[in-house]
């Protein structure tokens, strides 16, 4: 029973650590700087990362921007400087709390490990607990690695946008919402920047 409880604790700790590692990831740096996430524009700041779907509608009279209620709330919370849905992100802005949390987690895992090692029972329960810990460790490591590599760049999902628009099909991808100063606008109040790479035709360098 104790071993199982300990295993459950380790699962919890690993999940939290995975999230924290994910949140603490630095901006992806690759040899090709073109596909790394750029810094916000001068004077601007990223407030939300969400997804966007561009849908051509021949029947529509005016372009329309639809936004979910939850995104709007998060947007408002981010603008107000409150936590909103960005709980994990907020942690990265609090080094003191992160350090204290890390120390406590370290103590928890250390003491738990010592207690686990010292427990005299070496029965089936302990083996199950060990197996659970191992599986969680592997899954956790895989999750960290996967998130760490962050998959393909955001532009990948938008690569077929022109063709999809021409065919009247929808295209969805990631979207950073950036708030810029009023004097930085370039005509319209809102601007959508799509990370499209110029595709060279065959034979063209």
């Amino acid at each position: 029973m104790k071993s199982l409880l300990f295993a459950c604790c380790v699962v919890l700790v690993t999940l939290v650590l995975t999230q924290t590692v994910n949140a603490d990831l630095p901006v992806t740096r690759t040899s090709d700087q073109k596909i790394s996430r750029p810094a916000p524009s001068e004077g601007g700041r990223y407030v939300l990362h969400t997804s966007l779907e561009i849908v051509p509608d021949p029947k529509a009279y005016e372009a329309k921007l639809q936004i979910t209620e939850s995104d709007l709330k998060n947007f408002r919370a981010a603008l107000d400087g409150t936590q909103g849905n960005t709980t994990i992100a907020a942690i990265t802005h609090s080094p003191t709390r992160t350090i204290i949390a890390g120390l406590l987690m370290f103590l928890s895992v250390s003491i738990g490990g010592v207690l686990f090692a010292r427990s005299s029972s070496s029965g089936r329960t302990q083996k199950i607990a060990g197996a659970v810990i191992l599986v969680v460790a592997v899954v956790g490591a895989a999750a960290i690695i996967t998130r760490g590599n962050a998959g393909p760049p955001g532009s990948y999902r938008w690569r077929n946008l022109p063709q999809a628009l021409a065919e009247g099909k929808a295209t969805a991808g990631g979207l950073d919402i950036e708030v810029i100063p009023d004097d930085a606008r370039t005509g319209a109040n809102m601007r959508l920047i799509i990370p499209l790479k110029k595709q060279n035709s065959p034979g063209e360098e």
Partner: protein
Amino acid sequence: MQSAAELKIWPVVRAVPNARVFGAIVLLCIVASAAFASWLPLQVSILTVFLFAGPHNWFELRYFLMRLPVRFGRSRNFFLTAFAGLGVLTLTYVSLPLLYRTALWSEEAWSTVIASWNSLFLFWLLLLIWLRGKRKARASWTWTIPVGLALCSLNWLSPDLFSLAIVYVHPLVALWFLDRHLSRTRPEWLRVYRRCLCVLPFVLIVMVWRLSQASPLPDSNGLFWRITQHSGAEVLPQVSSHLLVSVHLFLEMLHYFVWIVALPLIARAAMKRFWDVKTVPVARHAKGFPRLVAGLLVLALAAVVLLWLSFSIDYSTTRDVYFTIAIAHVLAEAPFLLRMI
């Protein structure tokens, strides 16, 4: 001096062959609470808190007095730690809103203050568990140390969420009390009761399924806003406030049901004449404190009446004040529950 063995004296009622009736009542209560909490969360919340918040505290106080030994004996350190922690934590918690108003706190500094209070609370709990564990020869509770530290760590990652978790977990503690009480007084009902508790997660799942997409509750006036905030609408803006208020209200209703209906009805011998001070061991004992107990209960009764009057005059402010002071009964549950485990 009262020994630990004497503490276990509790009026055991003979077996009554109506466990099914009890189970049916518990199930009915669970389903009815869920239905009302989902249907009219704001209105039912206002009415429930108005009617039952005060009385349930009175019953809880009386129950704790029933569990209090005349002399602490070898549990002296445990009770001293419990009462000292209860006093310090309650005072600091009540002073937090005043502290917030008197100084200009940044959000980060305020989060640190909340996390510090939560940590104090957890360390107090761990200390109580350790002291109680020392008295339990067979059980080893050392595993609670890493668990407590892990909880403390999570608290520092997100103090607001941790505080909200306390709000939601606290009502469930009453169900644990009822479980322990049944095991002592009506063990033949325990199996039925635990089966009924298995329904609880399914009811919660259904509530989440039905209400997660519900439109947010109106928080246009101060009172409705307070209710949604208390349920965590600000901490969890992505979750429907209807769902949050309904789930919290559902758990609160179960909490009130346990303290006001279930526990007094089950402990017939001692609680049937709940107005009789002599039914409280610490008052009945030759070396007891009948006047002190009577005074406490009368004072608590006056507080209940005052609470009703205050609710009638200014519901919103009274609700705020009540839920701040009510931390005392949340904290008091910990040592008495530990004594029953």
